[in-house]
């Protein structure tokens, strides 16, 4: 089943809040090998002017990929997850994700296109606090490999 081109331009409703936790930040920082104490030591983070420990630059992918799941799991989208590879990723941070944040993601399907027998879907997730403060824009392109 081909990817449904009619999904281009679609915007999903805002998600339930994702609560950024200090333990998850530590776990993620350890997994990517970031030794900056600002991820694990709240005193260090406050000395640098942050409200609490802050997340590494790619942590936002956790929330963004949960948002992408709304599209990928939609049977009408026609995306076979076992054939998905990640093509491109970009983050623009308006400020660091910080422990204690409650983050709402709004998923936009920016483009759906075919090239060389593969389908490529670019999504953009706008991450903001419950109060509406923009925190991060995460843009992702996935490639759905064409198949035998």
């Amino acid at each position, binding site marked *: 089943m081909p990817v449904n081109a009619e999904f281009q331009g679609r915007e999903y409703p805002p998600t339930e809040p994702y609560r950024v936790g200090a333990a998850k930040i530590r776990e993620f920082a350890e997994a990517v*090998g970031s030794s900056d104490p*600002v991820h694990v030591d709240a005193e260090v983070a406050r000395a640098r002017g942050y409200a609490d420990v802050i997340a590494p630059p790619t942590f936002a992918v956790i929330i963004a*990929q949960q948002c992408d799941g709304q599209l990928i799991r939609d049977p009408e989208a026609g995306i076979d997850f076992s054939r998905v590879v990640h093509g491109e*990723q*970009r983050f623009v941070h308006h400020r660091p994700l910080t422990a204690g944040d409650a983050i709402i993601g709004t998923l936009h399907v920016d483009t759906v296109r075919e090239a060389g027998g593969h389908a490529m879907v670019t999504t953009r997730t706008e991450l903001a606090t419950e109060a509406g403060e923009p925190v991060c824009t995460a843009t992702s392109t996935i490639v759905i*490999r064409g198949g035998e």
Partner: protein
Amino acid sequence: MNEQPTTPPAPATVRSAADVTVGETLPSVTIHVDRARLVQYAGASLDRNRIHWDEPFAKQVGLPDVIAHGMFTMGSAVTLVTEWVGDAGRVVEYGTRFTKPVVVPYDGGADIEVSGVVKALEPDTKRVTIELTAKAAGEKVLGRALAVAVLD
């Protein structure tokens, strides 16, 4: 100096824009990745796609072997930038293409060699652009990997 009796946290020692020149290289690092690390990253990131830890499954869907999460490579490569800048919170933009998978065999794992160079510096805003190069098995695995950070 701080007068507190307990050991105070070290203040951020963020690199000064005045000390940076375009074309300067960042210290390179080699990141070793094995299956245990991929399982760790899968748990931390909640990306549990089987292609990153289940070898028969990866081969069944046409891959040569288990491959690292592109986001693992992206996330670990940027530590070169955050350590050089002096504060992980100063990275304001970061993007890349995933040009080749990092194949992670059961025996021995894989090494990702990461280097970086200063491509641009805006003296007014103190925004520095770093281009990262990441190679595994001699091939570039990230394309147009650019990080922008705000210096002091």
